[in-house]
């Protein structure tokens, strides 16, 4: 996949290997500083593109820039249809099983509970951790469940016997995030020792320690191709890692605050990263910055998830949940969780959220010890819930 970046004036970098890559990136309108307007038309003529590649003409892009911003796709609003309470502490992590029958949640009460997705009833409680469980993952290829907690333990549970069969020892401090590699039997964990550790699942061996971050690694995800590991950290950087060499491939320093959540689009080759200042979209594999989301949620964003329809859901520390259209970055719904009766107002805080495998149900894990399930409101229509979208004239990029 070849990417070309076309600018509206100053430079053009031609990708030498471009053999007609069909993916092109259009610059957003009016992002230049206002001064050298006169030079732009002059430079335009030099940027005429040979017809071999599929890039966009600069003249088109210069003329009507605001309308170049893609219009958001209409999505139905999401509503909360079920509240499950059963945990005795904050619910910190969630994972779905590949068959979409059940999901498991890890909590501050040191248990992992497995719930039936269709009915919301509790199926099983697993105990074994001695501290909060911060990360959960269900393996796609084996009947294993992986959990990681503040007690530096990373455990592998066999779901046929419902017990721990492996423990991965090596973290020096609490483990905050966990991810499974899609194709290789590798487990990635990141924690407070600012290192992302790579474990071989079968042999429990510590394969590599990806060092480079300065602060806690709080989010990680894995991809089948390079960069195979992407980590976000409290030092506000995102690093791409070369798994074979164990080195950083790229560091993205676009964020100002810690990157607590990242979401990889299931189909597109891009991912979004969320921090308290902004939610930014980047492309893969090079990690080029695409754009910010068009609104600012102005809260610490703890969790983020995107489904195949392009609905991005972000959950904040103050209980606010915003829904965005992936493509355009337009926020079409803002919601606030209601704490369950008996909880304080300050306990409105969402720690984790995840779509189910189909992408039609969203499950959030909250600080008032409940699990809330959301689905699209099917009675809504584009007329009843219109999209009020104004293309951004002056896009903030900082």
């Amino acid at each position: 996949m070849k990417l070309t970046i076309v600018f509206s004036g100053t430079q053009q970098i031609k990708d030498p290997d471009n053999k007609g890559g069909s993916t092109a990136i259009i610059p957003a309108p009016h992002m230049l500083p206002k001064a050298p307007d006169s030079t732009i038309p002059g430079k335009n003529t030099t940027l005429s593109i040979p017809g071999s590649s599929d890039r966009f003409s600069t003249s088109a892009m210069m003329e009507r820039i605001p309308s170049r911003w893609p219009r958001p796709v209409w999505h139905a609003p999401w509503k909360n249809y079920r509240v499950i309470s059963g945990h005795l502490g904050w619910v910190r992590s969630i994972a779905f099983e590949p068959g979409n029958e059940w999901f498991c949640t890890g909590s501050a009460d040191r248990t992992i509970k497995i719930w039936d997705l269709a009915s919301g009833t509790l199926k099983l409680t697993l105990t074994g951790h001695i501290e909060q469980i911060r990360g959960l993952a269900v393996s796609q290829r084996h009947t294993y469940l992986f959990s990681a907690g503040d007690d530096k333990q990373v455990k592998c549970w066999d779901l046929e016997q419902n017990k721990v069969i492996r423990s991965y020892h090596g973290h020096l401090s609490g483990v905050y995030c966990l991810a499974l590699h899609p194709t290789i039997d590798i487990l990635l964990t990141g924690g407070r020792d600012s290192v992302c550790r790579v474990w071989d699942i079968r042999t429990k061996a510590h394969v590599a320690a990806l060092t480079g971050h300065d602060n806690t690694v709080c989010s990680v995800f894995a991809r089948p191709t390079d960069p195979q590991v992407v980590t976000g950290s409290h030092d506000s950087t995102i690093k791409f890692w070369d798994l074979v060499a164990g080195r950083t491939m790229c560091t993205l320093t676009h964020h100002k605050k810690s990157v607590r959540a990242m979401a990889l689009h299931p189909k597109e080759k891009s991912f979004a990263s969320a921090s308290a200042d902004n939610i930014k979209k980047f492309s893969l594999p090079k990690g080029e910055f695409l754009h910010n989301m068009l609104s600012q949620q102005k809260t610490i964003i703890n969790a983020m998830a995107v489904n195949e329809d392009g609905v991005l859901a972000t959950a904040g520390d103050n209980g606010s949940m915003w829904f965005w259209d992936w493509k355009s970055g337009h926020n079409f719904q803002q919601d606030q969780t209601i704490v369950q009766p008996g909880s304080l107002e300050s306990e409105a805080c969402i720690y984790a959220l995840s779509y189910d495998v189909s992408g039609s149900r969203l499950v959030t894990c909250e600080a008032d010890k409940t699990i809330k399930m959301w689905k699209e409101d099917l009675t809504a229509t584009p007329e009843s819930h219109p999209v009020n979208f104004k293309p951004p004239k002056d896009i903030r990029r900082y």
Partner: protein
Amino acid sequence: MASLKEMLPAPKAAASTFYDHSSDPWFKERYGGESAQSAAAAKPAGPAKTVPPYGKRGGFVPRRPEDFGDGGAFPEIHVAQYPLGMGRRDDKGGSKILALTVDAQGSVAFDAVVKQGENASKIIYSKHSDLVPKIATADSEATEDEEYQKQIEETTERTKSALEKVVNVRLSAAQPKNVPTHDSESKFIKYKPSQQSAAFNSGAKERIIRMSEMAVDPLEPPKFKHKRVPRGSGSPPVPVMHSPPRPVTVKDQQDWKIPPCISNWKNPKGYTIPLDKRLAADGRGLQEVQINDNFAKLSEALYVAEQKAREAVQMRSKVQRELMLKEKERKEQELRALAQKARMERTGVPPAPAGVPSGGGRGAADDRDEDMDLEQPREQRRETREEREARIERDRIREERRRERERERRLEARDAAMGKKSKLTRDRDRDVSEKIALGMASTGGAKGGEVMYDQRLFNQDKGMDSGFATDDQYNIYSKGLFTAQPTLSTLYRPKKDGDSDVYGDADEQLEKVMKTDRFKPDKGFSGASERPGKRERPVEFDKQEENDPFGLDQFLTEVKKGKKAVEKIGGGGTMKASGGSSMRDDYEGGGSGRSRINFERGR
């Protein structure tokens, strides 16, 4: 002369003992080059071979190594010279200066600084264009799917194999059979040095080295100190792609101001903190104190009740006073009647007409005048004069006395109101400390003439003795404060044979005391019915004649009370009289059943 050589014995070592320089490659280069040069064609620049002598090096610039001849650089020629190629810094030493590069469009690559070194292999974003928002359009993953899948597979394979290697190394290192064992036997190594001649190694072509493990003293402490070395700097810095953090507004700064913690419990450094700071974090100002209305209601109700009570009391007292007055009047009347009757009996003459009734306050000893207007007014007239005079006299006396007493009371009251107290009154009201101050309460010292010493001066080493008292023993003072009690002087002190004549001497008096009849143990009261025997119990009651022929009352009370064995438990004591119901032991059978003590009216 024979040469020295012949005289000396033949040398043992055949070869020459000094190094044959002729075979040295360096010399071959230098001197062998001459021969090679003579064989080869002469160089075109003739004068270049020979170095111009000193003084004649005007335009001479040595650039090639052969320009220098045998020697080094020429100091008088101000050109960078590198004799024998020495001193030229081409790529050696790691120059810190980056060459200024220009990319294809002709713009200077300013991010060469960032992209050098380790960062050369990484993706670094350093341009403004990397900050500019863009849209990724028309992702055609569909067409790339096969490609993409292939890529995925290839990556997977590559990564897997690499990771497998790492894992295997780690696993095998952990397995016991892979641990390198120490061979205690020595190893022999054959070593062939590169420089072989008769000079080295005594002409031997190879050496054999025996390598053996040195014996390690197991009790030896570590030889080397492991110093902590600071971590090498990480990867070179990456350009920051965001604006510097916004300056904090004043409001934000104020919002995040956290006051220092002043604990209500601990103060380890012993700071003196003003009270308002101590209570600052109490949250007093945050809550409004709500006082219930009922408090006001209560106080009002109390006030009202007090008023009412006062009124009621006043009214009651008034009524009572009136009643008392009436009673008094009645009594007075009665007494007058009695007195009159008595007088009548005495004199046998109908009494004189009633005089003015005297006001109350006169004692019963005074004669009372009757105010019997009712009886015998004729007889009254006869006695009127005498009686009247007597009466008038008595009245006058009464009046005088009354006036005197009133006057006394008035004076006293006036004095008290003014604050003047008589001596007796004053002394009665004085506090003991005032008495001491005035010297009225003597502590015995003045009387005895002894000086009072502070007892703390004596017995300084009380020591063990002093502590052996119980807690409540009050042993601070050995004797009372006031030795001279007023009672002592007022109490009776038997005099020595005071009036033996009058009262009889001591023996007589003693007999009298001994034989006195006053303190008989079982002496009954005069007028009370004499008991036949001794008193059996402290209080004895008379048996009452009851009007209960059938014993119903008794039956009922018996039933009510019930004869339980428990009740007899306390019955053996001597104190039988219980306040409410008193039951006598021997009277259970036919007790009166009355629950109150009936007192008989004495005559």
